[in-house]
């Protein structure tokens, strides 16, 4: 790394390593509360009879909810001043680029998740690169996240990015 790089050596050394792992149980009431907050009343998430008629064995978890099934618990004292927990990024921080914003997310879904499935998430830091944008230099961090169930079946695989600016 050159002296001018926005990426410090400590962060750079973490490329390829696991940023976070988490496990959690998929819970029907939790995903239904999420769906209600989205205004999403799809009967696949709510009506077992309907879901069975479509070939599922029970109601299924909305695909976009899966990422929340593994969220841990943060004590109030452990929150950042802005109220967020900061757990998802694996504590990556760029002292020379402290302003962070979510980039994008791309997820492939391989199969349904059911109530009481045990999901294991493993998030790896795939790359950290410095780029030049219209409004100046920034750091682009990309994570790869794999979700498996208790039968070790791949449920979903996501690529997520974050942008950090000076």
């Amino acid at each position: 790394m050159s002296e001018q790089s926005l990426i410090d050596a400590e962060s750079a050394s973490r490329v390829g390593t696991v940023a976070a792992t988490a496990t959690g149980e998929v819970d029907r009431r939790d995903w239904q509360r999420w769906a209600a907050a989205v205004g999403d009343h799809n009967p696949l998430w709510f009506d077992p009879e309907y879901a069975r008629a479509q070939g599922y064995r029970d109601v299924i978890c909305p695909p976009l909810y899966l990422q929340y099934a593994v969220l841990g618990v943060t004590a109030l004292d452990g929150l950042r001043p802005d109220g967020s927990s900061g757990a998802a990024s694996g504590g990556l921080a760029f002292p020379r680029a402290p302003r962070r914003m979510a980039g994008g997310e791309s997820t492939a879904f391989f199969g349904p998740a059911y109530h009481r499935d045990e999901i294991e998430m493993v998030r790896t830091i795939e790359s950290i690169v410095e780029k030049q944008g219209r409004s100046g230099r920034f750091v682009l961090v990309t994570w790869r996240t794999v979700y498996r169930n208790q039968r070790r079946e791949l449920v979903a695989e996501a690529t997520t990015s974050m942008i950090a600016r000076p």
Partner: protein
Amino acid sequence: MAREQVFYEDVHPGDALPTLTVTVDERQLFFFSAATYNGHRIHYDKDWARTVEGYDNVIVQGPLQAALLARAITDWIGGRGRLVEYAVQNRAIAFAGEELSFTCVVTGKRLADNTGLVDLDIAGRRDDTLLMPGAATVALPLRGDRS
């Protein structure tokens, strides 16, 4: 809820899905933050949003925009359709009280292992402002396939 099933054969490039229009109010922001265990103050603390982070109001969670855009898709694909791939980018923020629209257009279709895959261009917008562009792929049942 009675829902009509859309089939692979009925879908053509250029077809537009029904547009979902939602005005997210502060109640919905609160419930979504609660449902996703999100404590970030910019979604409920107006004073913090204005004075510390420089926004005019509390802002709609990016993941809520993404969830609404996904809802436009899963409402359309029916009980036998499956969301296979979903990709979005956060391009711009939206404030509580703004009318947002979520639109999807079919860009292509193909058969893979006897599965009907349909590609979609998807977008969340506020008027002409593109908030969240993206792309998705769904699997739709084939007519006559009663599996």
